[in-house]
């Protein structure tokens, strides 16, 4: 399934031609060998295959080493108490690193943000389904497909079923 062709970052030809935008020079997609189900290749894209097990079964300890606590009262970063660490470990055992991103229950303003530390003073925060952007669609009274983009799983569930806000030729 996965393709292995690599394309260099950059646009050498664009530089040679003196500033032509690379977008205009992008190579057209081409078909890969027919024994590959017609999977195509594109100049600025690579495909890798990582089955769920590869990203969803990381040891909880590894995940915990990348995490920190924010005090729910002071909003300051601090070490987790033993009880908090136990709760986090328990939670991590029940979900994957990827699932942390997907689990809206882990996101709130009460201090359970999952923080990441990078080089220097870099601080990061893993986001959750509450931050994901959902695209919903419904059929309006005129039979038209109405697409709507909303942020958060709850908003998506509401948007997919709340048809009254949309304009239609049957609006009155």
């Amino acid at each position, binding site marked *: 399934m996965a393709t292995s062709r690599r394309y260099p970052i950059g646009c050498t030809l664009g530089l040679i031609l003196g500033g032509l935008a690379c977008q205009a020079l992008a190579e057209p997609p081409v078909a890969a060998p027919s024994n590959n*189900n017609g999977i195509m290749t594109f100049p600025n894209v690579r495909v890798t295959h990582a089955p769920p097990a590869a990203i969803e079964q990381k040891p909880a300890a590894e995940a915990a080493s990348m995490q920190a606590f924010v005090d729910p009262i002071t909003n300051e970063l601090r070490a987790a108490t033993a009880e908090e660490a136990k709760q986090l470990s328990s939670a991590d055992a029940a979900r994957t690193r990827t699932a942390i991103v997907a689990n809206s229950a882990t996101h709130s303003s009460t201090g359970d943000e999952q923080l990441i530390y990078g080089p220097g003073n870099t601080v990061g925060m893993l986001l959750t389904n509450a931050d994901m952007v959902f*695209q919903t669609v419904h059929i309006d009274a005129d039979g038209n497909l109405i697409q709507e983009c909303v*942020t958060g799983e709850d908003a998506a569930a509401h948007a997919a079923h709340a048809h009254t806000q949309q304009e239609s030729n049957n609006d009155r």
Partner: protein
Amino acid sequence: MIAKRTSLFGKLALGAAALAVSSTALSAATIVIQNVNAPGVGFNDPTPVEPVGGNLGTTMGAQRLNAFQAAANIWGATLTSDVVITVVASFEPQGCTATSATLGSAGAVAIFRDFPNATFPNAWHSSALANKLTGTDVDPVNGDIRARFNANLGTPGCLEGRPFYLGLDNNHGNAIDLISVLLHEFGHGLGFQTFTNGVSGAQRMGIPSVWDFFMFDNTANKLWVEMTNAERAASAINGRKLAWNGASVTAAVPQLLIGGTPMLTISAPANLAAQLAVGGAGFGPQLSESGVTGEVAQVVDAANGIGLACTPLSAANATAVKGKIALLDRGGTCLFPVKVKNAQDAGAIGVIVADNVPGTPAPNLAGVDPTVNIPSVRITLADATTLKTALRTRSRTSSGIIAALGVNAAIRIGADPFGRALLFTPNPFQGGSSVSHFDTLGFPNLLMEPNINADLPQKVSAPQDLTFQLLQDTGW
């Protein structure tokens, strides 16, 4: 106001100029689609399919993957980054009914602050942007964007018969073009989003998003980063008053958004003089710069002093509106074109429809009737209340209120009077759609409006779109 902000504007302009030079010289990034579907499902679905619209895949999974790649390739050819952008992607079941569905979701996996070369210190940036600015992968453990799309779309019980169009040629007809949806969702994942709460105004952990340095409220005369939580919450529902104050977007607006914002201009009496934002009509003649000017006359044909105009106007109402602009009310059992046609038949030269529910901005008037030949607009309930209060002192044949239905050619549609693109800030707040999109008024339609329109050209950059220009302002 402008002079006060010269310093900040200057910095932003210089930054945008430098970025523009950079992107011309070396405009490309590599996007990795990390297929996390298990064998036999999603991207690995072996169901045989016929090639469609330039998509050469022969299985459902291969066609999905080709469409993902095609969308990623458009972004990859536009962005500049020395660090690969990893999209962790899957097709899997999502919420569905027979008439509605979640198409999919996407977003940044993580946000970062205080990394080297950050656009602003102590501000949240998307993961992919942080990588680009630092030149290294600040979080090599996790991907940069998570994308999940609905594997069941078009099957029984899940918008049956309306699957994704997987062709690459934008020839989707009435189907849902997966590439357009992906371009939009990838845009959010790349950083087209504030992480500040639009309802409460609270910043994430008390720290602003890079977006908050560019969102300027024309009522408060402040950037979001300068506001209190309460001010931000008010700004998020300040209809068509919140603008994107970035040099790259503002420079591109004239290349794209056409001139001529629909307006209802009240010129008399002096105490009512105003330019009111309106919703246009999907029927009847287009509003013009010269417009239609006349005295406003109110129709009254129902309880509580409202005028529904669902039936031919009475003699008294016809006398009142003849040669004038009729003020009608939304509601009743008839469609908007019926109301307008009844006013037209009574001799009205234009129609103002007063909304009957609170909220801003006023939506357009939907409907079809090729026999309508007078212009019509919708105004908000609040504006209608003001107008009706003034109309209480009218006589049977004269109100003294002079109005013009037309367009303000000096204001581009979807931009503010200073040429800055407007953001989507309806009142009431629309859960998640508000703020982190361009306003729906923009024309031609923009990729990052909350409703993905069927006429999008599969482009992300000017002169066909403004999405990349906004990302450039944030540091891309």
